[in-house]
Structure formats: structure tokens, C-alpha cells
């Protein structure tokens, strides 16, 4: 029975790792998108 | 070719005239071996098994001492640009420095081997085979080490970056196979027994001299 602990541990680590990484990429993407939008507004504001 | 000789001689003159550089190399090698001797003096161990790892780890450090200033010195003295101005191909600089490094490391290794046999009394049936393995192993260390030293000289904290970059590429490839070859020799083998390692190390040398020749341009350009 004790072996299964390793199985659970391995699977949680893999899927937690993959999921967290996808989440991190997703959050970073949104943050950067907003930053670009905001900077573009400043740029347009400066030009007019 | 004349330019390679010129750079080779210049490197040797700069290296051997720098008194404190040579002294520090010798003292550091002495300290490494003494610390190994001290570390292993408490446990009884079959010397022939531990001898080759100790030897090659000391060689690795010796190599690192001599490799770290090679390109860094040129930047600090501002002479690197002068070399790029000269009408020579960049690979000439690589070969000149590689050969100079090789000679310096070999001298250091002879000194270390001398100390080694004092600290760890051991008889080697085929001493010539040991010298060949050490020589071709050092060619690999100098060839690849030179490229990595050129890379790390362009980086911040280059003293730290040299070992960080050098260990993954050198330790698991040439150092391991040299260790297995030397331990075979220490256990009484002769050159024929280690032919497989010798061929492997020679292949490593050839490949990384070629890689150095091809890539040094991109490392030293603006």
C-alpha cells in the first residue's frame, strides 16, 4: 500500500506544476496586454 | 600560422612573467591535494579506487585557475580590441590561447602529479599510459575551457560564471571518462585496456577544437 503514496505524490507534483505554469503564463499575458493598452493610450495622448 | 605562434608566445610570456600568478597556481594546487589527503586520512580506503577522482578533480581546478584570466586579462588591459583590429581571423586568437593554456595546465598537472605521488604512495605499472590519458584529457579541458572562458569573460561576475558554465559541460563528459580510464590504469591496466576511453576522449578533443574554431567569432565580435 505504501507505494501508492509515491504515485499520488508524483501525479500531484506533475499536474500542479503544469497547471501553475499555464496559470502563470496566462496571468502574465493579461498583465502585459493591459500594460500595452495603457501605454498606447499615453502615447496617443502625447501625440494629440 | 605566424600569428598563432605570436599570440602563443605572447600568452606564455604574459603568464610566466606574472610572478604572483604562477605562485598562486602552485600554492592552490598544493592546498587542494593536502586537503584531499587530510580529508581521506581518517578513513581507510583502497587508494587505487579514490586515486583517479582525486587526481582529476585537482586537474579540473588547475585548469580553471589557468583558464579564468586568459580572456579576462585582455579586456581589463583593453588589448582585446587591438587583437580584433589585427588582420588575423578570430580563430587564430582561439588557437594561440588554447595552445598556451594547454601548456600552462600541463605544467601545473606535472607539478600536481609530483605532489600526488608524495601524498598518496602508489605504484603505476604503465606510467606512460597515464601520461597519455592525462595529456589528451587536458587537451579537452583546454579546448572546451577556452571557449567557456571566452564566453564568461563577456559576462558580469565572470569569475563565478566560469565554473558555473564549465562544470556541466566538462565534468560529465571528459572528466568522468578520464577518471574511468585512470582508475583502470591505477588498477594495473595498460594502454590497450583503456583504448575505448582514449578514443572517446580524442573524439571529444577533435569535436570541441572544431566547435571552438567555428564559434569563437560570435563570442569575441562586438
Amino acid at each position, binding site marked *: 500500500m505504501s507505494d501508492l503514496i*509515491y504515485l499520488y505524490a*508524483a501525479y500531484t507534483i506533475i499536474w500542479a*506544476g503544469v497547471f501553475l505554469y499555464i496559470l502563470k503564463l496566462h496571468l502574465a499575458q493579461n498583465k502585459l496586454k493591459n500594460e500595452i493598452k495603457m501605454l498606447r493610450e499615453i502615447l496617443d495622448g502625447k501625440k494629440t | 600560422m605566424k600569428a598563432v605562434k605570436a599570440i602563443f608566445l605572447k600568452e606564455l610570456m604574459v603568464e610566466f612573467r606574472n610572478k604572483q600568478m604562477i605562485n598562486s597556481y602552485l600554492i592552490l594546487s598544493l592546498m587542494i591535494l593536502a586537503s584531499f589527503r587530510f580529508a581521506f586520512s581518517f578513513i581507510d580506503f583502497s587508494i587505487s579506487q579514490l586515486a583517479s577522482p582525486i587526481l582529476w578533480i585537482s586537474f579540473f581546478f588547475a585548469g580553471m585557475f589557468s583558464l579564468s584570466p586568459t580572456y579576462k586579462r585582455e579586456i581589463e588591459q583593453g588589448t582585446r580590441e587591438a587583437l580584433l583590429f589585427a588582420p588575423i581571423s578570430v580563430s587564430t586568437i582561439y588557437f594561440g590561447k588554447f595552445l598556451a593554456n594547454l601548456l600552462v595546465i600541463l605544467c601545473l598537472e606535472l607539478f600536481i602529479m609530483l605532489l600526488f605521488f608524495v601524498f598518496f604512495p602508489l605504484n603505476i605499472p604503465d606510467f606512460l599510459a597515464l601520461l597519455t590519458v592525462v595529456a589528451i584529457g587536458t587537451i579537452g579541458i583546454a579546448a572546451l575551457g577556452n571557449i567557456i572562458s571566452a564566453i564568461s569573460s563577456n559576462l558580469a561576475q565572470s569569475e563565478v560564471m566560469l565554473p558555473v558554465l564549465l562544470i556541466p559541460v566538462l565534468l560529465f563528459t571528459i572528466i568522468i571518462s578520464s577518471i574511468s580510464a585512470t582508475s583502470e590504469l591505477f588498477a594495473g591496466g595498460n594502454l590497450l585496456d583503456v583504448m575505448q576511453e582514449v578514443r572517446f576522449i580524442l573524439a571529444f578533443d577533435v569535436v570541441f577544437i572544431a566547435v571552438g574554431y567555428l564559434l569563437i567569432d560570435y563570442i569575441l565580435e562586438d
Partner: protein
Amino acid sequence: MMLKNNLKFVILGFAVILTLISIYLALIYTPSHETMGDVQRIFYFHVASAWVSYLAFGVTFFAGLLYLKSKDFKWDTIAFSSVEIGIIFCTLGIITGSLWAKPVWGVFWRWEDFKLFITLVLWFIFIAYLALRANAKSRTSKANLSAVFGIIGFVCIPFSFGANRIWQQYHPTILASSEGSLQASMAFALVFAVFAFTILYIYLLLAKVDIEKMKEIIDKIKQQVGG
């Protein structure tokens, strides 16, 4: 930009579906291993993660070559993004490898197992690559030097492989063939897991490259705004 986003979501969806199927295959569809029992099910995703890290490093190698030839920073961004993904899957591969080694061989790490050895060598090379980029002084020198180191690291892999083979001769350990009898269903589950992870890798690469591109756009705008 819009087409890219749709394509990315399609790939993500595809990757998620494939991964779910591969989990089903690994846990339920395949029988448990006669000798090792259910813990052997780690094997599928251990191999898949290790495979992705080798694939990622291969992409870095080719991207580095193409950068040196074309001097186009796009290749450098791909090389860097691939390394970041590669190091994550390499770490996962090593952790699952040792978690699987403990019950089966009783020890967390076995130097003799050249698969684990090569994955660790690759892990060190990834770390060195990232350390190199962290200490580079200018954008061009960062791209040049990391491309060169990526190539050197890639050439080292077969040599580490060979060195380990030679090392084995002096310490011939009867390497309990961990794979052992791989039944058809297990082989299928393995291939499926590898395929699912490859699609996942492609998605992650696209997402990471987009993020790096956005960072560059921001720098350009900041320069204009500030200028």
C-alpha cells in the same frame, strides 16, 4: 494578432483533451505492472516530461544556430522560451524519476541509470544557460553567448551519454530492466502521453514567445513615450 490567439486556444484545448485522455490511459486503461504494481504508472509521465525537456533543448539548439546565422532576435526569444519550458519539465522529470526509483529500487537516486543521469546533466546545462543570460551585458551579447552555449551544451549530451556508457563498464550493476515486459496497452499509453505533452509544449512555447514579444513592444513604446 487575432488569428494567433484563436490558434493558441485551439492548441491549448487540444492539449488539455489529450492530457486528460492520457491520464485515463495511464491510470485506468493499462493494467498494473506485474512486479512493480501500480507505482509503475508514474513511468508514463516521467518519460513524457523527460522527453519534453530533450525536445525543448533541441529547439534551443536549432534556434541558437538560426540566430547566429540570421542575427534575428526572434530566434533568440524562441531559444530562451524553450529553455524556460524545458527546465520546468526537466525538474518534473527528475522529481518523478526519483519518486519512482524509491519504491522500485529502494533509493531516491541511481547514478547508473543513464536516463536519470542524462536528465540531470541536461538540468545543469539549463541552469547554466539561464545563469549566463542573467549575467549578459547587452542584448546582442546575451543572444550571441546563449546561442553559442546552447550549441555547446547540445553537443555535450551525446558525450555525456558515451561517458556514462563507459563508466558503466567499471561498475556493471545488473540494471533491473525497469521497463521490463511492456505490454501493448502500456506502450500505447506511453506514446500517447508523450504526444500529449508535445502538444502541451508547443502551446507553452507559443504563449511564452508571445509574452516575450509583448515585453519588447512595451520597451519600444516606453522608449517612444520617454524619448
